[in-house]
């Protein structure tokens, strides 16, 4: 019997291992706490396996080099934290507009500005959705345990390749730096998805246009150097890739970029429900806050309170359908997060005014402890009983 590959890894290391398992062969980055271990790990591993690692002059260059590498056929990623993530926004918009698959890891620390470089935070959540200018597609994944970081990094690459779009892995500092036991699955059991490619016949290559959408609205992609000699621009463009100022072309492009995420939404929506079937008090959480929430919910159950947890793993596109189902019996919803209520706004948008929603927030570099969420659950339970 084959021995299991069991390791004791930090979240950042598990992320790097997951990337390699997904076929990542290019990393461009710039050091920043608390994400630097990912770059360090990749700088050691990539040149050993024929991949490329480069430390760039800043985060703008880091995402730039990643996009260039992906266009030439690499599976490419970068990793950063708040300030660097801010710098990357313009080029992330380019990758969305030009439909270049890549993975951006944002290990969240406190902000705004330099903020709290070494403390945990979830304060970039809305930036992962709305960071770059213009209407744009956002795909964001947030892990809550080390064993999950590995698989979700693989998925981040798979989603990026499948949809030809940048995918953000939003990890909070607790998950990034904590060490846990992780079993690395055997290589053959890992599903790896590659970008959709057209048939590579001479005729198909000669007639290739880079932005003719397939059935799922994702255009098949040839890499630079494969003979198609096409044009890529951040300008509004038509199916040939060349700039266009025609209103109907611009309208179609901007709508398709969002629609391609929408039609594929079920394939990329990841979530976890714990005891939500009869939950009258529903906690909605993600990342390390969801770990605390899980404990709070089980403590509340022991006290006879019908509490449940909806954990969003795919933060964006927002898991609307799934949340609505989990909140069916909810009389009160609690959203704990290490920011001042960013994801709560989304929860409010989806659940509406019919149900009271309370936030449990902390922005002082300390984690949200289970006791804080339990307090909120108990308070909500008492309010419900009075009614």
């Amino acid at each position: 019997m084959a021995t299991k590959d069991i390791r004791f890894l930090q979240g950042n290391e598990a992320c790097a291992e997951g990337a390699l398992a997904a076929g990542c062969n290019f990393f461009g980055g710039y050091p920043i706490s608390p994400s630097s271990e990912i770059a360090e790990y990749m700088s050691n591993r990539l040149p050993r396996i024929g991949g490329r690692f480069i430390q760039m002059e800043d985060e703008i260059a880091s995402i730039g080099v990643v996009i260039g590498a992906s266009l030439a056929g690499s599976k490419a990623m970068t990793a950063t934290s708040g300030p660097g993530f801010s710098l990357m926004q313009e080029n992330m918009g380019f990758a969305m507009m030009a439909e270049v698959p890549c993975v951006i890891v944002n290990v969240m620390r406190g902000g705004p500005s330099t903020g709290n470089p070494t403390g945990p935070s979830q304060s970039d959540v809305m930036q992962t959705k709305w960071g770059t200018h213009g209407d744009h597609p956002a795909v964001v994944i947030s892990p809550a345990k080390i064993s999950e970081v590995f698989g979700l990094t693989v998925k981040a690459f798979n989603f990026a390749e499948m949809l030809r779009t940048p995918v953000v892995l939003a990890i909070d500092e607790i998950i990034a730096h904590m060490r846990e036991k992780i079993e690395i699955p055997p290589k053959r059991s890992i599903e790896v998805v590659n970008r959709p490619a057209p048939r590579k016949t001479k005729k198909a290559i000669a007639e290739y246009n880079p932005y003719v959408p397939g059935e799922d609205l994702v255009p098949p992609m040839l890499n630079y150097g494969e003979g198609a000699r096409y044009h890529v621009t951040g300008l509004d463009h038509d199916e040939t890739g060349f700039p266009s100022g025609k209103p109907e072309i611009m309208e179609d492009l901007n709508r398709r970029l969002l629609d391609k995420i929408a039609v594929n939404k079920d394939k990329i929506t990841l979530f976890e429900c714990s005891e939500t079937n009869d939950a009258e008090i529903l906690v909605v959480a993600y990342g390390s806050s969801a770990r605390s929430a899980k404990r709070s919910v089980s403590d509340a159950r022991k006290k006879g309170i019908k509490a449940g947890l909806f954990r969003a793993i795919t933060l964006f596109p927002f898991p609307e359908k799934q949340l609505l189902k989990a909140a069916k019996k909810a009389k009160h919803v609690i959203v704990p997060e290490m920011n001042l209520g960013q994801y709560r706004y989304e929860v409010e948008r989806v659940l509406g005014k019919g149900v009271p929603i309370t936030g449990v927030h902390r922005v002082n570099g300390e984690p949200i402890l289970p006791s804080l969420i339990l307090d909120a659950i108990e308070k909500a339970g008492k309010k419900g009983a009075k009614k």
Partner: protein
Amino acid sequence: MSMDYFKYLRKERMPHIWCPGCGHGMVMKSILRGLAKLDVDPNDVCVVSGIGCSSRTPGYLDFNTLHTTHGRALPFATGVKLTRPDMKVIVVSGDGDAMAIGGNHFIHSCRRNIDITLVVFNNYIYGMTGGQVSPTTPTGQRGTTAPHGSIEQPFNVTDLAIGSGATYVGRALDVDSVAMDRVILNAMKHKGFSVVDAWSQCPTYFGRQNRLGTATQMMEQYKEVTYNVRLANKLTDEEKKGKFPVGELHKKERPEYCEEYQMLMHRLGAKA
């Protein structure tokens, strides 16, 4: 010098956006003549640009072409080159794109000595946005954001490139296409990071605001403020004062980034 430019041009993308009298087309043609001499497969050429008038060049060229964000062409090009070291990667950029917003990438690409050729279409002005001063606008000259004349000292593109570690550096004027062909071809032949400060005139904005006359008059003025670097020894300091040398200004052999990376992988036992 007769060659079929349409071999490398996307005819259907014509007419181009450049104004009458603009020198950018002449620089573009010089690059094409160089590529024709190198006889590389167009499938193995990648031309990358940022934002601005000169950065529209790739759209007209029948290679793998990439029109990136403002100032960021060099990092994108670095990603292409590192992935495909066998590709010929050329970056075309303007003085604003390369020297202002892209200044950091410029100096670091020089330092890294990655095998990319950067041609700076230097017309001393932001043309696309309507004539604002750039980092190469000479002190005292006017732009729409310096209506009283620039009080800043400009960058010297070639000095900055040499100081930052570029291993091939040249300057050429669009008016002297024979000399420009030589410098651009040698830059593309060079293994390492090469920079060509290619002077191009902008009669529409730079010329008009500074009353420099027609495009041909501006080209004459370029000749007056430059001298051939091969004649440098024969000229007195007085004769060279305030003038710019043109030609091949700097050539040095130094380990190239992609080759160093290949050696690193080899040392670690990786299959390249």
